[in-house]
């Protein structure tokens, strides 16, 4: 499968996901299905799916200590060790994991190969500065996270203080001045723009970098397109095709109180947005998006490099056939004796 086909397939899938609620609510008025049943089913799939998947990972042991040591080991007091990149104990591991999870430390190391060949054929291999992937990934994940938290104003009544704080920080740029009267009302959020930019970058990068273009599967484009669709419908709803958001909140809070209601006055655009997020979270446990949980379990990152001073047990360790010294001496006794190498038995 080439990249064009992959993109067609995955974008088609997203188009279908948009059409389903559009027809379902717009034409057939199935508001209860799309406003209540689908989100419940999606949330159930999400939570159960994650738990099942993580427990399945947990059922396989970690037989050996295989941390990737990215720094100096702990040895002599006079040699400075790298307690984070080569942790000797739990504290170092915790810090290393925090750096990985919150700051994408490993990705920060990224470089770009610059291969040149002089006219006489002499090759030169160089590594150039390349932090864009790291930056886009960080911006994408944090924007998504902030946007998710901002949505808590729809999920929680009364709205907690941290959501209000987040909103005021995120929306500190006041738009709607000349010459763009009315543009960006209500207030524009930084994270909305950053998310769309970052996802677009991540998509274009997949296409532009020949290597990622080659390795990308439809399963790589699909979540990007889904998230783009999610962001796009959200922006449409906020600025262009507005709906009665108090009604939306009633619906959302109803869901979270297990007391679902489907108020009138909510446009189809909302149901499309809701369906896309439902699709995303239902897809989550079966996809690469599980890296979110997987990173915490990664044995090359979450183990300390202490296997020389702390004993670890492999739960499925089993006895193996070895070539014993006795067998060895039986093979070579004569030669050993002749060469004056000590033996256990003289003959």
């Amino acid at each position: 499968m080439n990249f064009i086909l992959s993109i067609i397939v995955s974008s088609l899938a997203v188009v279908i996901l948009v059409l389903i609620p559009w027809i379902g609510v717009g034409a057939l008025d199935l508001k209860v299905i799309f406003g209540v049943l689908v989100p419940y089913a999606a949330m159930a799939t999400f939570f159960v799916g994650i738990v099942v998947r993580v427990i399945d990972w947990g059922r396989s042991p970690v037989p050996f200590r295989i941390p990737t040591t990215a720094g100096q080991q702990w040895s002599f007091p006079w040699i400075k060790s790298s307690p984070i990149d080569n942790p000797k104990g739990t504290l170092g591991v915790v810090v290393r994991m925090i750096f990985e999870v919150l700051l994408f430390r490993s990705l920060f190391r990224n470089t770009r190969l610059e291969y040149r060949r002089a006219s006489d054929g002499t090759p030169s291999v160089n590594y150039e500065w390349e932090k864009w992937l790291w930056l886009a990934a960080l911006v994408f994940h944090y924007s998504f996270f902030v946007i998710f938290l901002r949505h808590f104003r729809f999920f929680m009544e009364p709205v907690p203080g941290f959501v209000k704080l987040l909103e005021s920080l995120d929306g500190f740029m006041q738009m709607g001045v000349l010459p763009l009267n009315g543009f960006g009302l209500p207030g524009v959020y930084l994270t909305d723009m950053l998310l769309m930019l970052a996802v677009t970058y991540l998509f274009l990068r997949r296409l532009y970098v020949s290597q990622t273009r080659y390795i990308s599967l439809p399963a790589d484009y699909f979540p990007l397109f889904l998230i783009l669709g999610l962001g796009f419908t959200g922006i449409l709803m906020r600025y262009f095709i507005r709906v009665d958001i108090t009604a939306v909140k009633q619906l959302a809070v109803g869901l979270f109180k297990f007391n679902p209601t489907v108020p009138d006055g909510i446009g189809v655009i909302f149901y499309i947005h809701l369906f896309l997020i439902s699709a995303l979270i239902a897809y989550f446990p079966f996809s690469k998006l599980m890296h979110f949980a997987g990173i915490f379990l990664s044995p090359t990152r979450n183990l300390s490099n202490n296997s020389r001073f702390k004993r670890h047990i492999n739960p499925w360790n089993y006895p193996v056939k070895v070539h014993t010294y006795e067998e060895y001496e039986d093979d070579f006794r004569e030669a050993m004796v002749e060469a004056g190498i000590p033996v256990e038995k003289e003959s």
Partner: protein
Amino acid sequence: MYDGGKIIAGLIIGIGLLMSPFFYNAGKAAKAPERVLTEKAKQAKECILDKAQMTASHFKLLDEWRHTVVRDGQRYYKRADGKVLYKSLQVTCMDCHSNKANFCDQCHNYMAVTPYCWDCHIAPEEKK
């Protein structure tokens, strides 16, 4: 299961945070606001634009009014049907909707929206 304690604890924390809206709302009244119309508003039967538009986009209209009045000095708004209205939050809007607490604030609080109307305008004194 191996490292079960740590994994289950991690799952409980992670899933628990993601499910926090369920826990947060549980047992709370979480009553949706009901727009209260004054007698005058009820009698007027119509607003500047139709009800759905006013609900979803009133701030856009107000912003437009603000710009055109303050910057261009245009004090009159000609509606699509030809009716001419005086552009004023305090004089026109609040004439009918004099119940700011029940009409404006209720929903704004519900949605955690903090409009900056009242940074400049003086909120009308409410009749109890």
